[in-house]
């Protein structure tokens, strides 16, 4: 019957260790982690494989098989028809009602040559052509339209050049500017376009990884009636909360690491030619460390919300919504594709999103910007943890 001296640190460690052991035995927690390492890569690579296949088909389509183009009034422009033939576009008979046929989806593109065409052409004025298509069609089906349009434009500019030459004028007069395009994007960076969705998924998994713990160690513990006995132990309440937050961070960080590893392994072994990115240990370590402050902030947010909910169910439904919060800043990644800068790297979630994308692309971000991101997210995490501690001090925590 003597009182023992107990340090805060050893109490913190005892609670943290217990929560980790307790939750490691929880099937839900383990399922989340299993999903993160198996489903995540499958999801990503399923998508990449599909894109890869699409692009290949697109190339094949353009290169080999002749594109069938229904033409109304082909007899008015025999030269153009020849030109189209040379460009691997086969002219076929048009249906009776071209517009309805396009609307019904029987054809993707139909060319109309009016009766005025030959006259205008031989007079040297602008000859009208009409191309019917449905602009709401996207993807592969769009290729036909673009190919036909391109072929006719080329024909037009060739004719134009010849007319200028026949009048003794250099065709260059009519084209004052020529744009030479050089694309300096590395193959990795080009693949990075497909990786724009990575930040979403990773940040979601960071949140999901810690969610069950956040709920179980606060609202869940209260519902089971074990919170009150715990709070009558000789441990300060803020230590209890910080230990629980720590355990949440452990699982969240572990899930994140698993996702990164799954991604790395997937890119290494999955048969996707389009994506020439490799994610080695170095990149994984960079992303993991740079995003750790966000893991803290996300977990603190979840523990905070779970602290004032009354039941497991309530906490779960709130957290479902809370999980969406960090994905909001990521929206701008899709719409604006910002470059890392002092003006945006302080935003939590967004800055981590940019770090993930740039690192995967193989580009380096200056250390200042990474530090800014890490500091701001740490400050946010500390603020959220502080509020959670304050909430935990209230008597109402016992329900």
């Amino acid at each position, binding site marked *: 019957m003597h*009182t*023992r001296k107990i340090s805060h640190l050893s109490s913190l460690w005892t609670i943290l260790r*217990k929560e980790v052991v307790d939750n490691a035995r929880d099937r839900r927690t383990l399922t989340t982690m299993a999903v993160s390492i198996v489903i995540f890569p499958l999801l990503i690579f399923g998508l990449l494989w599909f894109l890869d296949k699409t692009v290949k088909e697109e190339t094949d389509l353009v290169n080999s098989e002749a594109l069938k183009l229904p033409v109304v009034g082909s007899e008015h422009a025999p030269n153009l028809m020849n030109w189209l033939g040379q460009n691997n576009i086969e002219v076929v008979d048009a249906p009776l009602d071209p517009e309805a046929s396009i609307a019904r989806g029987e054809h993707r593109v139909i060319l109309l040559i009016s009766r005025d065409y030959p006259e205008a052409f031989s007079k040297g004025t602008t000859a009208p052509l009409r191309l019917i298509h449905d602009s709401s069609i996207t993807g592969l089906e769009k290729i036909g339209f673009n190919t036909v349009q391109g072929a006719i434009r080329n024909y037009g500019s060739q004719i134009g050049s010849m007319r200028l030459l026949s009048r003794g004028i250099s065709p260059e007069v009519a084209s004052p500017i020529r744009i030479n395009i050089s694309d300096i994007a590395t193959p990795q960076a080009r693949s990075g376009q497909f990786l724009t969705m990575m930040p979403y998924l990773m940040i979601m998994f960071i949140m999901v990884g810690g969610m069950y713990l956040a709920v179980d160690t606060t609202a869940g513990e209260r519902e*089971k009636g*074990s919170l009150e*006995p715990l709070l*009558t132990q*000789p441990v300060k309440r803020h230590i209890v909360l910080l230990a629980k937050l720590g355990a949440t961070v452990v699982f969240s960080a572990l899930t994140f690491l698993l996702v990164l590893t799954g991604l790395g392994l997937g890119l290494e072994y999955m048969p996707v030619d389009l994506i020439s990115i490799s994610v080695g240990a170095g990149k994984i370590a960079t992303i993991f460390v740079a995003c750790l402050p966000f893991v803290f902030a996300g977990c603190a947010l979840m523990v905070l919300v779970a602290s004032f909910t009354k039941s497991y169910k309530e906490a779960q439904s709130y957290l479902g919504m809370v999980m969406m919060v960090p994905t909001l800043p990521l929206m701008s990644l899709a719409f604006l594709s910002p470059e890392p800068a002092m003006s945006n790297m302080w935003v939590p979630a967004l800055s981590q999103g940019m770090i993930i994308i740039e690192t995967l692309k193989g580009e380096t971000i200056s250390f200042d910007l990474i530090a800014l991101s890490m500091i701001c997210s740490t400050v946010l995490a500390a603020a959220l943890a502080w509020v959670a501690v304050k909430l935990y001090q209230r*008597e109402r925590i016992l329900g």
Partner: protein
Amino acid sequence: MIEVSNLRKYFGSVKAVDGVSFSAHDGKITGLLGPNGAGKSTTLRILYTAFRPDAGTALIDKLDVTVDKLAVRSSIGVLTHGAGIYERLTARENIRYFGELHGMSGKELSLRIDELAELLDMSDFIGRRAKGFSQGQKTKVALARALVHNPKNVLLDEPTNGLDIMATRGLREVIQRLKSAGHCVLFSSHVMQEVAALCDEIVIIANGTVAASGSPEALRNDTGEQNLEDAFVKAIGSEEGLI
């Protein structure tokens, strides 16, 4: 030694505890008896530092429960209402967790858990995970958890709730042993027979105040009733809520 003086705790307009005073001595079993909602649990919750009183003082071994919270928590063992234990931990791990929070470790802790398992007759389920435990088994784990650091003062909130007859008998035996080892035992109950059978001192609480207190004999004499049950009813003023 627990000394409570003029304790008050209001929740909005509800006067849960409204001027409760009593003391519980070492080597004695003190019972808080009263109908449901009388203020027993709230009084205990103030004593084990979960709630802060609006007025009055509560001392445990001369330590103020609102000031020396950690020292108070070290000197008490608490069986809370409902006795929530961790289902994914074994009985032993549940007890060890609280022992460690009290600064115990290693062989000292293991031996203490063995001792409690023996005392509470837990040996056949001590190594099993708590999921699926009966209410009696859960209560035993929670009780062992409360006693692991051998606290001088033991606070039990409705300890016999949900226990069958055998388990209740076992619990009584444990409480008697704690008494003879010199502990101060304070428990709440709404079961008259239980309190009458065990307690040296009875504090009858109704509507947030102490209606009567003293030894069973003193209570009988004060109310002029020969039967203890009639004495209770007379002290409380109604039969409502008692079993």
